[in-house]
């Protein structure tokens, strides 16, 4: 009975979403205040029923209710409780329910945070979000019902995919979805502006915290995924340019462009139609990612089980949402002209360059991701695009972007001159150049020109990010520094940290595949790895072979690693659990391979300098975003909006 309750709750939620989607939009068009007001209670009700449905599914997993097909396919009575809960979003149906729950949390937040916005504008935002929710609720109810019964019930479940039995998986999808789905809010703002059809720049200030928060979640979600792949897949790589990774990276790039473009619209009233387009594009790429991951049009290690019917449904939904949004854009955007100008050397120009380069970078990823699909569709045969393409082409837009960033940060709005700006950046440039050359020559072995440029770029960004805080510090006014400036400095510093980690790891990692018997050793650089023992380990739902590897640095034991080769009993699938000795300066990484006969085992041993900085950089970037959201400006924005309501409503002309 209880699972049916969950399905019933979803049906009620769909009805409420329809009300939320239709009434406020119709009300805004006809100036009917009662209709506009219905949106908010409908959204609140929808949230309650979606939450109920999510809890029902979670309960079915906790109770091992194997009469529910989805539970029987993705859980097992021997699965630990924590993974039974995270298994709720371990496959297509449940992760879609999580997606809907996250969307509802964003909707409620947008309603609470937007209660001071002009009534008509806010009604349109609520309506658009309601329509997005209708699409996803219809998708889950009509093609992917997680509450379908299995009759007769299974004796036991088929277990969760062992790859997913990991603490990071428990939080990776929720984080990622908060990022993906969050872009629905700036999207709804953009649509509301286009529906209103008059010149507007206020919306940029209202939308920016939402765009930034989504970006923060997406950054953390992607970083978590990368970290998880690093220690769980056993290859020691941190980014694979897999289609599904790209599906999350494209909205991130577009979202980054959006945040920067929103600044220009907010402060200077420029780039109006461009910012609207970016807001539409960021969310469209989130939807596109959903389509690519769940329809089976691309080959990927972690695409969900493919189903053309589901693919068709999302494609139709994508067409309706994105097609309608872009048509509205083509119709209304020509009205959004900017009369203000700016000099060639100004903050505006640098942000324009940032935007163009980020959009090019998005296209680089999009083309690489879709190339196999396009060639296949044209009957040109089967292709696959490897990391070599992405690695080589991706730096073409991003390297100039990073170099410009260091100057752009210190350039004034409207007009500036190089002589003034160069005073802020030349010391940093010299310092970064010295560090780039010194590190390439002295630290680690054998870097090339490209890695020297990379290290230079990393320090260039980090040092440039310190200029503002140092200037305030010198004046003794560090407390007076606006949070938005703090946020920018911190986030850019994080980007520098990330670049340093990525460049050094990619250039200087040492990797060795060895066949070792117990008692034998191998060495990587100054580190000696000794294969001490091999033993059987019994886990709750798996059996594992565990190697005991002692690591010595100049004869002194510094760590004992226990890499495992697990076989999960139900699915009989082998899994690698790597052993990692993590320090800020380097990781030592051991993965246990296969038995080679004669008591020898293949072992992959890696030395990865500064690999931690990759994820640390992402965390710093996210902190920067969080700090920026706290800026006074956005609180003042609310007071402004409150004051403006009567005027805003009166001026309304539809």
């Amino acid at each position, binding site marked *: 009975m209880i699972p049916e309750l969950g399905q019933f709750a979803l049906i009620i939620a769909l009805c409420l979403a329809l009300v939320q989607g239709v009434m406020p939009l119709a009300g805004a068009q006809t100036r009917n205040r009662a209709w506009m007001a219905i949106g908010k209670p409908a959204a609140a009700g929808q949230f309650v029923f979606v939450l109920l449905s999510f809890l029902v599914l979670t309960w079915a997993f906790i109770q091992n209710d194997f009469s529910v097909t989805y539970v029987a396919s993705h859980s097992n009575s021997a699965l630990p409780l924590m993974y039974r809960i995270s298994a709720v979003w371990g496959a297509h149906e449940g992760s879609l329910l999580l997606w809907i729950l996250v969307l509802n949390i964003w909707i409620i937040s947008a309603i609470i945070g937007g209660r001071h916005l002009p009534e008509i504008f806010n009604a349109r935002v609520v309506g658009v979000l309601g329509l997005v929710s209708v699409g996803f609720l219809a998708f889950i109810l009509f093609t992917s019902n997680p509450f379908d019964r299995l009759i007769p019930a299974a004796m036991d479940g088929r277990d969760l995919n062992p790859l997913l039995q990991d603490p990071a998986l428990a939080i990776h999808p929720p984080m990622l979805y908060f990022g993906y789905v969050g872009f629905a809010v700036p999207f709804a703002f953009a649509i509301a502006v286009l529906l209103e059809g008059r010149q507007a720049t206020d919306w940029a200030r209202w939308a920016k915290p939402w765009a930034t928060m989504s970006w923060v979640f997406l950054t953390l979600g992607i970083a978590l995924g990368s970290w998880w792949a690093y220690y769980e897949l056993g290859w020691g790589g941190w980014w694979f340019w897999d289609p599904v990774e790209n599906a999350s990276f494209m909205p991130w790039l577009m979202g980054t462009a959006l945040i920067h473009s929103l600044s220009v619209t907010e402060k200077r009233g420029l780039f109006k139609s461009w910012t609207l387009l970016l807001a539409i594009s960021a969310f469209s790429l989130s939807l596109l990612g959903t389509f690519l991951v769940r*329809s*089976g049009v691309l080959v990927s290690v972690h695409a969900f089980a493919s189903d053309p019917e589901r693919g068709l449904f999302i*494609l139709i939904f994508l067409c309706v949402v994105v097609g309608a949004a872009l048509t509205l854009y083509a119709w209304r955007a020509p009205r959004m002209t900017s009369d203000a100008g700016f000099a060639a050397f100004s903050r505006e120009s640098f942000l324009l360059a940032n935007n163009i380069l980020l959009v090019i970078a998005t296209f680089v990823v999009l083309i690489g991701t879709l190339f196999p699909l396009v060639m296949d569709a044209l009957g040109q045969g089967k292709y696959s695009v490897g990391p070599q393409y992405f690695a080589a082409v991706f730096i073409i837009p991003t390297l100039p972007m990073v170099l410009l960033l260091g100057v752009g940060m210190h350039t004034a709005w409207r007009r500036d001159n190089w002589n003034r700006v160069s005073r802020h950046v030349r010391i940093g440039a010299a310092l970064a150049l010295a560090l780039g050359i010194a590190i390439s020559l002295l630290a680690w072995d054998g870097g090339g020109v490209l890695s020297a440029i990379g290290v230079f770029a990393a320090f260039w960004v980090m040092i440039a990010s310190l200029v503002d805080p140092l200037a305030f510090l010198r004046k003794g006014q560090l407390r007076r520094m606006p949070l938005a400036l703090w946020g920018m400095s911190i986030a850019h510093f994080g980007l520098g940290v990330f670049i340093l980690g990525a460049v050094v790891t990619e250039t200087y990692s040492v990797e060795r595949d060895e066949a070792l018997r117990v008692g034998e050793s191998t060495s990587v650089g100054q580190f000696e790895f000794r294969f001490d023992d091999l033993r059987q380990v019994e886990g709750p739902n798996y059996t594992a072979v565990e190697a005991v590897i002692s690591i010595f640095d100049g004869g002194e034991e510094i760590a004992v690693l226990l890499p495992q080769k697990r076989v999960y009993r139900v699915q009989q699938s082998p899994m690698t659990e790597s052993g990692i000795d993590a320090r800020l300066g380097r990781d030592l990484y051991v993965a246990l391979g296969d038995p080679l006969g004669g008591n020898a085992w293949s072992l992959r041993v890696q030395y990865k300098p500064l690999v931690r900085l990759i994820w640390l950089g992402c965390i710093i970037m996210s902190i920067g975003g969080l700090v920026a959201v706290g800026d006074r400006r956005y609180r003042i924005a609310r007071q402004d909006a409150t004051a403006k309501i009567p005027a805003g409503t009166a001026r309304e002309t539809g």
Partner: protein
Amino acid sequence: MWRYFLPIAFFVLLVGFFLRGLSLDPSEIPSPLLGKPAPAFALPSLDDPAKTVGTDTMKGEVALLNVWGTWCAGCRQEHDTLMAIAAAGEVPIYGLNWKDDPDAARQMLRQMGNPYVANGVDADGRVAIDWGVYGAPETFLLAADGTVIYKHIGPLNLGIWQQDILPLALQAREQQP
């Protein structure tokens, strides 16, 4: 103001590719054997190890070669389909029993029915390597002269059989001298 229409134009183009992409299977890899003579083999028969089953046995008429094993879930799934194809009697089915235990294979055919005219025992999997088999089940359609006409990866069902394979088989039979 045509530039404001660029995004929607680009989007429509993408949707066109996606629509086409939905009906294509990206993991389907065309066999390099298509249109070429099948790699010759001669293996001991599953029913009677003294006899051999091979490319010579299959020559002379249009035939299917189905790669299977008792360990393979997809093969059990397609078993009913194979039984139906065999019952229709239009195209004989030969089996390549791949990396399997012959006793288990014989038992499975006794229990679930035997759609095969004959089975070759490829215990060490060498023939499957020659044939470029990625994983069981895979099914090849062979012309009377031993040319590979079609390859299907994954479990067969009657829809695939009737829409994709049978027309090719009938066509090949007509062209037969």
